[in-house]
């Protein structure tokens, strides 16, 4: 997994609540057997018309946001399905950080497996960042995971919370399967006890 330590870039505002995984990546793109190449389909139904042409006023189609690295969005971002295609599409587009008042649990979890930092902040702070993002290419945000801070274009700094284990894994780009397998003896012990007590499992 790609490490995440610092990120500096343009933030795109998408001020909608309940942005669901069907909006992020519609089902017709889930037929792939690869993880890569989904960025072009990110927000497909909002981003392209019925003929596949870009819809000019969708935020990621505007010139100043085409290289956005950060997304600022409304409450309950990523609700809906467990599809990891959602964070794959976001990362493949080039967005490495999503800021919102809250996230759906499965999506939130999936971000950390893909080098994306989801930051949950109180609504008033998200509103400030949404205003910053609305200023386009002039509004660069600086995110420092180690320090747990977001620096806005006017020099103001916002702190954010993150689970220490997830932070550690993101900072170091750790392979979680590899980490768990270091505990294999404990898994084996657990299985032996379980086989004894509940052999039907």
């Amino acid at each position, binding site marked *: 997994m790609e490490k995440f330590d610092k990120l500096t870039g343009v933030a795109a505002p998408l*001020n*909608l*609540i*309940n942005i*669901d995984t*069907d*909006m992020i990546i*519609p*089902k*017709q793109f*889930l*037929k*792939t*057997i*690869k*993880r890569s190449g989904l960025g072009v389909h990110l927000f497909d*139904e909002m981003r392209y018309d*019925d003929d596949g042409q870009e819809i000019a006023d969708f935020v990621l189609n505007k010139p100043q946001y085409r290289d956005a690295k950060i997304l600022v969005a*409304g*409450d*309950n971002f990523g*609700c*809906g*399905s*467990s*599809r*990891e295609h959602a*964070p794959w599409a976001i990362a493949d587009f080039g967005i490495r950080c999503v800021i919102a008042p*809250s*996230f*759906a*649990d*499965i999506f939130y*979890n*999936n971000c950390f*497996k*893909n080098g994306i930092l989801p930051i949950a902040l109180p609504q008033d702070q998200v509103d400030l960042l949404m205003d910053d993002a609305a200023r386009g290419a002039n509004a660069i945000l600086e995110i420092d995971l180690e320090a747990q801070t977001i620096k806005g274009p006017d020099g103001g700094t916002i702190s954010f919370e993150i*689970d*220490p*284990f*997830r932070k550690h894994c993101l900072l170091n780009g750790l392979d*979680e*399967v*590899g*980490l*768990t*397998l270091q*505990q*294999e003896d*404990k*898994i084996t012990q*657990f*299985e032996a006890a*379980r086989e004894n007590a*509940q*052999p*039907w*499992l």
Partner: protein
Amino acid sequence: MTTPRTLYDKIWDAHVVVPQEDGASVIYIDRHLVHEVTSPQAFEGLRDAGRKVRRPEATLAVADHNVPTTDRAHGIADDESRIQVETLEQNCKDFGVEYLDMSDIRQGIVHVTGPEQGFTLPGATIVCGDSHTSTHGAFGALAFGIGTSEVEHVLATQTLVAAKSKNMRVNVTGDLPLGVTAKDLALAIIGEIGTAGGTGYVIEYAGDTIEKLSMEGRMTLCNLTIEGGARSGLIAPDQKTFDYVQGRPRAPKAGQWETAVKIWSGLYSDPDAHFDREITLKAEEIAPQVTWGTSPENVLPITGVVPNPADVADANRRAAMERALQYMGIEAGAPLTSLKVDRVFIGSCTNGRIEDLRAAAAIAKGRKVASHVGAMVVPGSGLVKEQAEAEGLDKIFIEAGFEWREPGCSMCLAMNADKLKPGERCASTSNRNFEGRQGRGGRTHLVSPGMAVAAAVSGHLADVRDYQ
């Protein structure tokens, strides 16, 4: 004296392999369901790292999202869908996982097949790369959806690294009125707590209404838990649960059965257990529900009218409502029963089980689908289909003008050929009314199976109580 524990606490404690102070414990996963959409990249990851599946016998695979619901004699016409299903079959072969193919009578939607096979058991931890894994909580199993990276993690280690959720209890008391089902109850709860109301929680459903629900009703309720934001719903197992499980192919056999029931009988929340949040609903106050917008929380009794954004104080919520009304092509103040439907879909992991089809057939019997409506019934599994046909339900549906299809996820998410055209309005027994969910531009109204039939025969959203 030991601290009183919730049902969730008990199942969690029994599965901690490596406890961690900071919250992210290693927990053991007893059962893993796999389907074709969220697994190919997980198997690829195993292959790339030279890893194997730790316990192939704890995993069961079935193709459901991409399968056609029409004649399957010639396989899957769509290349990408076919490749995805073939990839699952090959991966199962390579890694020694049991796979139920399209021609197997047991094939069906993964959340219908698991319980049918006795793969779903009380007290177990069950995961699947699918958010509606919450369904299995109906058995008192801790069941939740995971992403593909976690699918790979479970395949390789039979564990997950997870932080414990908070405890919420939803108490429901009294009798559900005639025509009001577990689906209506679930939608009413989501209407009450909101689509993010359960985020960060595991929800236990309790109260005499829940005890009176059938296992299938409990599955419908737990299935929709994720639409209220909670990854898992739970119901304490009881005699009804044990009776459902006993004798199924993968249930504990004689000799082990008594021990299993003894352990499962301890799966309940202790009287003084702490819940971080608790709400109570009265069953008799719930009417048949229908969603009007593009989030499951946009729900009202069928007797209601389309709400007015001007009545909403919060600017973000008002904007979302305006967007939803525009997308749905409806006007504030219109009675919900005035909305004409073009299509009706009966099926899905929410409402594709035999009781759902019985409830739908009871309303359809002797009636005809309105001439402008295209209606289909898609059983949740081959076994559901077989049972329905044995009871003659297929004939009732066909006689009434419904299409009778092969099992799969079908138009719940429209990954196969079953989808809405832009602008089409559908009364659907599925679980999500998101923009584009049933096809680009499609407009979904979530309802119970009986309500879906009432819409089909009247040609508009309708109150099932008028058709009893």
